[in-house]
């Protein structure tokens, strides 16, 4: 149902505050004493916190919401929920409860809100969790998301920096959702790409996470707004670098073409600005592929660093589950460049 939700227009999509503005505020905030049970979240500016409540249970608390990037309210609800739930899976957790976060113009058709929340609720149920209510605000534009609570064994939290040289990188979803929806806003995306992107964005990372539990995963992150290279950059550090096999990257069919047609996003360029000095592209990696690797993903897949001996088995199981997973690179001993794209 096209145009059911007014797409954000002009400069109105101020979905996120600029990093400069944000950090100026954040750095002045008071901090209480560090709680030893707070495992993740005290120093970082994550949108998730992990709190240990007993020797075998830690609680993961997270939230995520944003304005629509698609016209269909039901699908938008699914995408927003899938995206919010993903934070739990990126930490290796299990979804338990969720609360709706809703901003909605009172004068707008309430059926639209019903469809958004129906899409969201279905995804929480699919994740094995329960929607327990939420909070709604009368606002000038639509925004939706979830606050999610999950659990994880404190010793089995996936870190994003635990990767070791020799580990294999596995990505569980295709890249290119940002480019595809950018093209879609100007009427240049083909139907197949849009439906590919939508089905990818509404696929929970649940099964990927559960499958990965059987293997020696050393690090994990979900690929979202910073793009593939932005999130990979969070996995590499002084003790480990990465090599990316660009020809192995799973891609939404039309995405490279949209990059060649210059339909890249502002966020993609910010991602490029942010990480490019840590990345070396080999000569054969063309412009479109570079843009794809910087492309911000909405509800993207999980990126695992897994023990090399386990990689083929894990990949086979992910693919048998219907995921377009691929081995997209490997971690190496620290090199001159943090990330080399071949």
């Amino acid at each position, binding site marked *: 149902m096209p145009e059911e939700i007014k797409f*954000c227009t*002009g*400069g109105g*999509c*101020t*979905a*996120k*505050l*600029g*990093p*400069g*503005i*944000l*950090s100026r505020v954040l750095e002045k905030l008071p901090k209480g004493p560090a709680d030893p049970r707070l495992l993740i979240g005290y120093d970082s*500016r994550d*949108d998730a916190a992990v709190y240990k409540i007993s020797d075998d249970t830690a609680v993961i608390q997270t939230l*995520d919401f*944003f*304005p*629509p*990037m698609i016209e269909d309210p039901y699908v938008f609800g699914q995408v927003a929920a899938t*995206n919010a739930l993903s934070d739990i899976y990126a930490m290796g957790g299990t979804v338990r409860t969720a609360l709706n976060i809703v901003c909605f113009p009172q004068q707008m058709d309430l059926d639209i809100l019903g469809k958004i929340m129906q899409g969201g609720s279905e995804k929480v149920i699919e994740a094995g969790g329960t929607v327990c209510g939420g909070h709604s605000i009368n606002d000038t534009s639509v925004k939706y998301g979830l606050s999610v609570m999950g659990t994880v064994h404190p010793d089995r939290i996936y870190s994003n920096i635990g990767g070791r040289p020799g580990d294999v990188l596995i990505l569980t979803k295709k890249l290119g*959702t*940002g480019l595809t*929806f*950018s*093209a879609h*806003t*100007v009427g240049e995306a083909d139907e197949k790409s849009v439906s590919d992107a939508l089905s990818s964005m509404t696929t929970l990372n649940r099964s990927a996470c559960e499958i990965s539990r059987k293997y020696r995963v050393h690090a994990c992150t979900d690929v*979202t*707004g*910073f793009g593939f290279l*932005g999130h990979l950059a969070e996995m590499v550090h002084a003790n480990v670098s990465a090599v990316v096999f660009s020809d192995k990257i799973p891609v939404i069919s039309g995405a490279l073409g949209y990059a060649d*047609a*210059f*339909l*890249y*996003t*502002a*966020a*993609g*360029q*910010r*991602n*490029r*600005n*942010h990480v*490019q*000095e*840590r990345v070396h592209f080999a000569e054969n990696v063309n*412009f479109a592929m570079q843009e794809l690797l910087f492309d*911000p*993903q*909405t*509800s993207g897949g999980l990126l695992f660093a897994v023990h090399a001996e386990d990689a083929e088995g894990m990949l086979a199981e992910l693919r048998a589950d219907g995921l377009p997973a691929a081995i997209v690179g490997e971690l190496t001993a620290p090199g001159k460049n943090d990330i080399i794209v071949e």
Partner: protein
Amino acid sequence: MITINAMGEVCPIPVVKARKALESLVGPEELEVLVDNEIAVQNLSKMAEQKGLPVQSKKLADDWFSVVISVPVDPDDKFANPSVLASAMTAAKLSRSAAAEINASGSMGTGGMGAGSAEGGSKGSGIAGAGSMGTGSAGTPGADASAASADTCIPEARKNTAVVISSRYMGSGDDQLGAVLMKSFIFSLTQLEVLPKTVIFYNGGVHLSCEGSESLQDLKSLEAMGTEIISCGTCLNHYGLTEKLQVGRVTNMYEIAETMLKASSIVKP
């Protein structure tokens, strides 16, 4: 010159508008695109580079930028030939790794990018398409946002370089040479993969950000790409230049000290 107003438009709209306009141009022609944020400047520059077209940008005011893309003079122009252009761009890229090789007149930079040779030496100010990809302005507080992105915050760029210019001459010995070197240095900054976050002018350095400076175009280019240009207010006053500042803004010693202390590296030519 054709002008497109893309103020208030969110990417990819400014690029799409520019692309459509370029398709209808047969040249020789210049296309000016007006946008309200630096990321749009970078995205337009990125397109021009991919198309092999010379591009220049400048900041006209806060939230107001002009990006000018040139369509080659005629189809037989050597720069319209992609292979010639590609090698010229490679040369320009290589030269950026050794800034000193960009000669004092800046002509290698402009020529390399296929910019109008009439611009030649005196104004080597084109923001080279290749160079524009390499801006290090991730720390820019761009208030626009992409609906495609779900994350709430992009961390600041890792590098926070401040360039401190305290004299209008580079080095000591011969001031005439020093002036030429400084002009070349500032031009070279515009060509770097990663631009400095801030350029600070104090004492004699403030002459360079004021009326009569030969580096104004280059500094405006840097500013358009997200580098902050600040000049010491006390110094402007001392030299009677307060009314003559042409690029960036006035600052005070508190901010100068704070910027220098916070910088991860300080470059002093």
